[in-house]
């Protein structure tokens, strides 16, 4: 063969082979089923078919800060609660607390109790949704079950129709209670700077006391289901404790004055990978402790501990990556403030024989323990003599400047930070949402899971599901929760070279 023809032939052959292998090596899991928002995972394999890098990306909602500027700060509890249809109550409460701080006003004790009551009701309802509908399919049905079973219908089939009905009914009653105090569940109007808009009428109390009892029974029942189905199955425990789903990071959560978990109020406590207290601070100091790292391949900013520093996607004491959400809250605390939850807390740490627990999948168990706490706290509050008080508000009188509020959202610590002029018109808005605190660890989880579970280019559906399990345990919420219409998700496919540059892009 003529040498020049041979060269052209070989070049063409090489290109064709490269294209074929590039095609074969790329595995994209999309859409991520049961995640609130659209996302995609890009997994890059090397020549040997091993995972080189895995990227987890989500389309972010844009422009919220700009949208808010120039508006009166007191509109924020309503506006922020509409950021997404998933955790409106969390945004509403963080925003209301930011307004307390902005106007330097302390709500009366009954108002705080009403807020905490509503908030725990929301936490219980939202956690129940995750346990049974979002994350439950991985555990209750089983990680190796066929895809058509790994959904809420599979859960119903596993636990039975009666339990399914109970889940639906309990959730509805909890939501009706939130609506009684806060108006619409999706757009709550409860919180005002210095208090709340509505209290509980004494004649309505008995029905809510009954609801609280039923809710606790439901939470304890869920704990039992979890123990029966998951913890008695050695294969699940092996999966939970496997190295694939383990990261030794810092943990963050709100705690009360005795370092016990609190969703509504307290100080932010951070513990090291070894479990010692690294920091404890008021919400107002968050910028002294938290910084954000930007990566070229993601819209998401990766939070890390300023004092430790950003060392890349790596764990250990020297890396500033931390985690929030149920497991992190349990790790960052010294216990639970209610008896049944405390029992479950002790059982949890005894089972693993360590604290902190570094296994991402233990989030599911931690979430069930938090359901018990939320239900017990609801009972305490609804039976509190002050709960029907009409002393619900202190009217603010100071000029506003800066307000920072924090709550524990179901998915972790949520910060709202507003700065205004003297008329209360917003000049600066900064939100750190729960998922953002977890974004670095979540990226690590996806990559580690992919690396541990895909070898030699061999990928089965079950394996891919286990990769997805790595981040579903965090219950990530990316706020794009309004497009309910099932159908094809918009997808942008991007290929990056070693320098992090986009070398190929496809849309469908």
């Amino acid at each position, binding site marked *: 063969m003529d040498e020049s023809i041979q060269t052209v032939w070989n070049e063409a052959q090489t290109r064709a082979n490269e294209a074929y292998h590039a095609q074969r090596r790329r595995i994209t899991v999309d859409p991520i*089923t049961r995640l609130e928002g659209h996302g995609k995972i890009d997994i890059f394999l090397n020549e040997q078919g091993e995972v080189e890098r895995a990227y987890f990306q989500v389309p972010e909602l*844009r422009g919220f800060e700009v949208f808010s500027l120039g508006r009166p700060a007191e509109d924020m509890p309503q506006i922020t609660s509409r950021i997404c249809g998933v955790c409106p109550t969390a945004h509403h409460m963080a925003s209301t607390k930011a307004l307390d701080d902005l106007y330097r006003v302390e709500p009366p004790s009954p108002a705080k109790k009403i807020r905490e009551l509503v908030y725990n009701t929301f936490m219980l309802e939202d956690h129940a949704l995750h346990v049974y509908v979002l994350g439950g399919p991985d555990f209750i049905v089983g990680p190796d079950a066929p895809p058509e079973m790994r959904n809420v219908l599979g859960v119903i089939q596993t636990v039975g129709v009666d339990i399914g009905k109970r889940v639906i009914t309990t959730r509805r009653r909890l939501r009706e209670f939130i609506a009684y105090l806060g108006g619409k569940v999706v757009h709550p109007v409860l919180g005002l700077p210095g208090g709340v808009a509505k209290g509980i009428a004494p004649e309505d109390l008995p029905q809510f006391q009954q609801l609280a009892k039923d809710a606790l029974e439901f939470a304890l029942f869920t704990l039992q289901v979890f123990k029966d189905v998951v913890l008695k199955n050695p294969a699940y425990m092996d999966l939970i404790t496997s190295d694939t789903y383990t990261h030794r990071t810092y943990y963050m959560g709100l705690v009360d004055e005795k370092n016990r978990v609190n969703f509504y109020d307290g100080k932010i406590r951070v513990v090291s990978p070894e479990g010692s207290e690294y920091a404890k601070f008021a919400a107002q100091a968050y910028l002294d402790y938290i910084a954000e790292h930007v990566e070229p391949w993601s819209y998401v900013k990766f939070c890390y501990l300023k004092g430790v520093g950003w060392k890349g996607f790596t764990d250990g004491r020297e890396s500033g990556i931390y985690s929030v959400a149920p497991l992190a809250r349990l790790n960052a605390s010294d216990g639970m403030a209610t008896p049944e939850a405390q029992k479950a807390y002790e059982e949890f740490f005894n089972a693993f024989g360590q604290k902190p627990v570094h296994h991402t999948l233990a989030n599911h168990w931690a979430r069930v323990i938090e359901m018990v706490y939320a239900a017990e706290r609801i009972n305490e509050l609804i039976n509190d003599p002050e709960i029907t008080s009409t002393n619900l508000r202190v009217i603010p009188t100071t000029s506003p400047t800066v307000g920072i509020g924090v709550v524990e959202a179901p998915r972790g610590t949520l910060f709202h930070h507003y700065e205004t002029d003297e008329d209360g018109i917003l000049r600066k808005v900064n939100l750190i949402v729960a998922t953002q605190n977890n974004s670095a660890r979540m990226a690590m989880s996806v990559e580690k899971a992919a690396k541990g579970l895909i070898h030699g280019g061999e990928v089965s559906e079950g394996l891919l599901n286990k990769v997805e399990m790595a981040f579903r345990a965090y219950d990530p919420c990316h706020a794009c929760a309004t497009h*309910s*219409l099932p159908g094809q998700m*918009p997808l942008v496919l991007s290929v990056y070279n070693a320098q992090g540059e986009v070398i190929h892009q496809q849309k469908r």
Partner: protein
Amino acid sequence: MNEQNGRTLVLALGNDLLGDDGVGLEAARQIAGRVDGSVDVVQTGEAGLALLELMEGYARALLIDSVVTGRYPPGTVLEFQPEDFRRVVAPSPHYAGLPEVMEMARRLQVVFPQEIRILAMEVLNPYEFGIGFSEPVRTSLPRLVQRALQILDEWQNPGSQPDQHRQDSPASQPS
């Protein structure tokens, strides 16, 4: 709720802080003033499992939503039947998709609408905060409202009107 209430539900889904995403909600506001007492018009930012609670008890339901398929010009009014979603293996990421919700209702013996129709407008940008619609969506809004009213009218007076709008409402087949 254990009994069917014989009523019709218009359920609009969306977020009016996200520009075009609120088109269903605006349509609902316009529809609300033009229907009789047997129709409830509800707006919500929720999805998934909440649909079960919102739709429970109704005889018929018309869902109005926005959608980005990327396959039709923005402003196109798409029309779906629930069956259109049956083939979707990985349904909506929002807790549970409509097929799952319907199947749940059946298995849990929840009283659920026997007839469900879905109208969705193809929109331009539902990812950026802002109030107001893009030009194609604003222009097409009256058609969305009109089509919704026509469906409601057909339900009230079965057989009285031919289904004229079908031809300019491409029924998308999600794949």
